[in-house]
Structures are given as C-alpha cells and as structure tokens.
C-alpha cells in the first residue's frame, strides 16, 4: 500500500462526487478541445484556399465593365473593347518595386481573352509560361508535360474534359494551330477552366500589343503581402491592387471572432467548473475531518495530507481530461455531417461563398497536441481548484478533527 492506494480508494469510495466532478470537467474540456480543433480546422481550410489561389496580390486596371471572376476576385471586363488595360510601363514599375522591396517571389503578367473552340466558350490566359509555373509551384500535371515552346498550350482539367482534349491534340485558334502539351491536374480553382498560352502569341492573335489585363504577384512570405501591396498601390494610381490573402483573411476574421467568443465562453465554463470542484473538494475535506485527524495522529505530515488531497484532484484531472478529449473527438467527428446539411446550405442561401467553401472544406483536425492540451488544462483546473481545500485539510488541527480524542 502507498499514498497512491489511499488516493485511488478514496476516489472510488466517493463515487457520487467523483462522477459529478468528472462530468463537469469532461464537458468543460470537451468544449475547449472542440473550440481549438475547430480553430485549427478553419486555419487549415483557409490555408488550403490560399494555396488554391496561389498568388497573393492581383493588379488590375481601375475602370472595368462587366465582370469576370478570377482567383476568387471579381475582375472587370475583358476583351469588351471598352476596358482599360495595364501597360508595359505598369509592368516595368512592378518589376522595379520587386527589386526595391525584395518581397516578391515571382510575378506573372496576364492577358485574358474570351474565345471559342468549336461551339464552346473558353478563356485564354496569355502569360509568361515559365514565370506562371514559378509562382504556381504546387501545380501538378495530370497528363502530358508543361509547355516548352510558344506553340504549345497548357489546359485546365475541367475545360480539357469539356472539349475532350488530350496531350498531343491540335487546337486551332484564329487559324493558327497549337498543340496541347499537358493537362493541369484539378486544383479546385479557376485554373481548371482556363487555357494557358504564351503571352506574346496571344497578343499576336488579339492585337493587344503591350497590354495586360492583370499581373499576378507571389510575395516571398505572408508578412510581405501587406507592405508590397501598399507600395504597389502607391506606385500604380490607375490600377487596383487587391490582396487575395486579405480577401480570405477577411472571412477568417469572421470565424476568428466567433472562435474568440467560443474561447471566452469556454473560459467561463472552466471557471464555473473550477468553482464546482472547489466547492465539492471543500465539502469532501469537511466530511473527512475525522479521517484527516486519524492520518495526522498516526504520523502523516501536513505536507502528506496536502499531497493526498491534491493527488486526488490531479487524478480526477487526468481522467476528466481524457474523457473530455474522447467526448470532443466523438462530437466533432459528427460535425461535418451537420455542417454539410445545414450550415453550408444557409451560407449558400445568404450568398456567403467563401464561408461556404470553408465550411464545406471543414474536417476536424485532431493532432497529438490535443492530448496534452486536454489533460494539462484539466489537471490545472482541478488542482487549482483543490489548492485551498487541500491547504485547509493540511492545516486542520488534529484534536479538532478528532473530537473523540
């Protein structure tokens, strides 16, 4: 027998109190773990969206006609005859800022053109294919290879499937022939619906010498996005500089607010749980006065009594933390089903597209750090709530405790 035996048997003996403490602690920890896991899930979903968009900044002309979606942003009129375009001078300015700030990893100027192949409308994106590949280094090739000459095309998988195109197929555009070099593996972004073509070749076809519809820029780090975007906006007063990250982060802030609220509620729950544990432990100490008197009489030091009471609290903390973690895993595992059927539908109907994507992307993230988070938090709450009652128990006068003596 050891001190641990006394702790263990006492916990078992006081089943009613033990179950109540474990119940409160498990629910509080489950709520905390759920909030943290949801937070991580959303961070991951946001990160995935940023990856999908690939670039951090888009520069477009300021005046625009009807709209075209690109990269999660609404762009202006393309090839409508009335839209303004960026110039070669704008591109030069961007390159200068790239050298000046050192915060740009790569940039890809683009000329977009609506066209048709057969009876199918398509969007051609004229770009420096080498630079495009450089800033979209996550691209995977579904079939074929990446273009090596200006007569080759790289095609998004969705439009390739629609047109029935495969690597090696020849496509005629404005009476000029191009060979499909490769098919881009599905990215889940607008790139799946675009035909990528050499920028100069598209200019020859469309007659847009020197003109650009947009410039995509990849910043070196997330921290570079803000300063670079600001510097570009200052240098290009006739252009709109949009940060894709900002657009997504804006949505993230909405979730962040909700999560902060959740964590605030959670702190409240943990505080209430701590108060419940404090009350129950204090009550248990009171009930155990005679027992504590016996232990003191047979030679248990105050420090040992203190350790016994806190040991019980710590043991309940460990068990409560594990139960709470298990409860959180069970409930969060069921959450995507609920989100798919209800929340996502309500977001769609409210027109909240980015939020909808985040919700649809939601998969609870369970990693190894949740275990120490759950157990350590539960132990801190339980032991923290037990300190004062344990101190009182240790300070009990054995004569007072043992009224019979």
């Amino acid at each position, binding site marked *: 027998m050891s001190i641990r035996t006394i702790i263990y048997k006492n916990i*078992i003996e006081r089943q009613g109190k033990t179950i109540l403490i474990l119940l409160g602690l498990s629910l509080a920890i489950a709520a905390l773990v759920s909030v943290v896991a949801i937070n991580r899930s959303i961070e991951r979903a946001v990160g995935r969206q940023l990856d999908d968009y690939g670039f951090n900044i888009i520069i477009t002309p300021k005046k625009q006609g009807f709209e075209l979606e690109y990269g999660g942003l609404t762009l202006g009129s393309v090839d409508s005859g009335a839209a303004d375009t960026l110039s070669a001078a704008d591109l030069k300015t961007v390159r200068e800022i790239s050298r000046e700030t050192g915060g740009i990893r790569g940039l890809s100027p683009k000329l977009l053109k609506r066209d048709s192949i057969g009876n199918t409308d398509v969007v051609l994106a004229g770009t420096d294919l080498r630079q495009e590949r450089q800033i979209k280094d996550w691209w995977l090739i579904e079939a074929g290879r990446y273009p090596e000459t200006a007569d080759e095309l790289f095609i998004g998988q969705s439009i390739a499937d629609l047109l029935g195109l495969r690597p090696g197929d020849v496509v005629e555009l404005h009476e000029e022939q191009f060979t499909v070099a490769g098919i881009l593996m599905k990215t889940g972004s607008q790139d799946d619906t675009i035909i990528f073509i050499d920028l100069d070749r598209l200019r020859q076809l469309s007659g847009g010498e020197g003109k650009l519809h947009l410039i995509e820029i990849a910043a070196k780090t997330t921290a570079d996005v803000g300063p670079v975007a600001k510097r570009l906006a200052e240098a290009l007063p006739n252009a709109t500089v949009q940060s894709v990250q900002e657009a997504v982060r804006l949505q993230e802030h909405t979730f962040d607010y909700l999560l902060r609220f959740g964590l605030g509620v959670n702190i409240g729950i943990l505080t209430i749980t701590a108060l419940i544990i404090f009350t129950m432990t204090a009550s248990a100490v009171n009930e155990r006065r005679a027992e504590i008197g016996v232990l003191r*009489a047979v*030679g248990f030091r105050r420090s040992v009594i203190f350790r016994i009471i806190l040991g019980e609290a710590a043991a309940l903390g460990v068990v409560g933390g594990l139960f709470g973690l298990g409860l959180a895993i069970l409930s969060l595992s069921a959450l995507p089903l609920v989100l798919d059927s209800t929340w996502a539908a309500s977001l769609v109907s409210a027109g909240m597209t980015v939020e909808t994507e985040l919700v649809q992307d939601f998969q609870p993230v369970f990693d190894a750090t949740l275990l120490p988070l759950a157990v350590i938090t539960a132990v801190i709450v339980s032991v923290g709530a037990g300190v004062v009652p344990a101190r009182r128990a240790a300070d009990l006068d054995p004569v007072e405790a043992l009224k019979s*003596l």
Partner: protein
Amino acid sequence: MDMKNNLLELAGISKTYGEERTKVTALDEINLTIAAGEFVAIMGPSGSGKSTLLSILGAMNSPSTGHMHVDDIDVYGLSAERQADFRREYLGFVFQQLQLLPYLTAVENVMLPLVVTSAKNLEERATAVLERVGLSGKLDRLPSELSGGEQGRVAIARAVVNEPPILLADEPTGSLDSETTDDILGLFAELHRDKQTIIMVTHNMETVRDANRLIRLKDGRVVADGPVA
C-alpha cells in the same frame, strides 16, 4: 529524568482555553512521570481534563505552560512536522470511535502508520499483527464487514504495528458491548504483559482492572495517583 525508569515526563503542564475574561483552565500544573512498561489508567468525571491531557500526551495539543519529555525529546519544542514524525515513531493511538478508514481493508488500515515510513514489507508486518490479535482470516475485509470487536482488534493492531514505545487509548471500549469489552481489555492486558507502555483514558472502573496505576483527575488537577485498588 531518570532514563532507566521513566519513559515520559510531564513538568508543570497547564492548559487554558479562551481569552482573559473567558479563560477556562483545563489542566493546572500537572507533573507526572510514567515508566516504560506501565499500564496507566486516567479517570475522572466529565470536564476533569482527561481528554485534554491525552491530547497533550499525544503530541497534538501544545500546553499553555510546562514541558513534556519523551526519551529526552522536548516534544513541544519540535516543529509541527517533526511532531508528526514523533507521533509516528513513539505513539500508537486507539480512538474511542476506533476511526478505521471505511474504504481500506483491515490489513490496509493496519498498514496506515507504516505508509509514510521507509519500512519494508508493510503487508507482512500488518498481517503478522492482525494474526496476533486473532484476525488472520479477515485481512481483506472492509471495516463494515467486521463486528464491533473485530474492528476494535484492527484498531489495536493499527496502534501497535509500528511498535511504538507508548500506546494511548481513549475510552477504547466506550462504544462496545460487555463481551467485546472483555475481548479488547484482554488484548490490552496481553500487550502489557509484553512490556508495552499503555496510557488509557476511561470513565469506567471495570475497564481499569488490568492497569497497574490509576491517576484520578478533577478540575484539571491530579487528585490521586497510585496502584489500582
């Protein structure tokens, strides 16, 4: 203090409770010496100070004045934690309500004083003592599964398992029927024959039959101290 004969010495022990105006004197100038191997019974009417005296002898209640020495140790000169060590090493307690821990088995209750020592073979030692008090077949019973007499035996076994020089008993038969009382007193007599020093507080003259010294208290003072008649 004569170490050859005297194990315990109380010198000028007084105990008062309350402030000046409400002061109550529980013990007044008690001077006692108790030799090793004595079986001392302390008797007195309610409020005579016998429980206070026992709690002072038990190193759990600091006297207002005076000293208590055991084996040349000034007990109340020790820190609170060292007093706990003293109780563990020098004293065994048998409480009036026996005070067995309800969630521990008989053998675990007996092991209790040994848990906070560096003693080895705790279970073997506790088992041996329980066998000595005739409970070898009930080691793993909870107190609720034992009769009153058996619970008393477990309480005595717990008090002597660490082989303390002094055994303190507070009305150990107060809650027992007459048959069980005889049983328990028989055990005390047996321990006394084995040279165990015993100090027992009681209000029942019948229970002092095996004691070899009787101290009578009244109003916090020793009014008689001599052999049991």
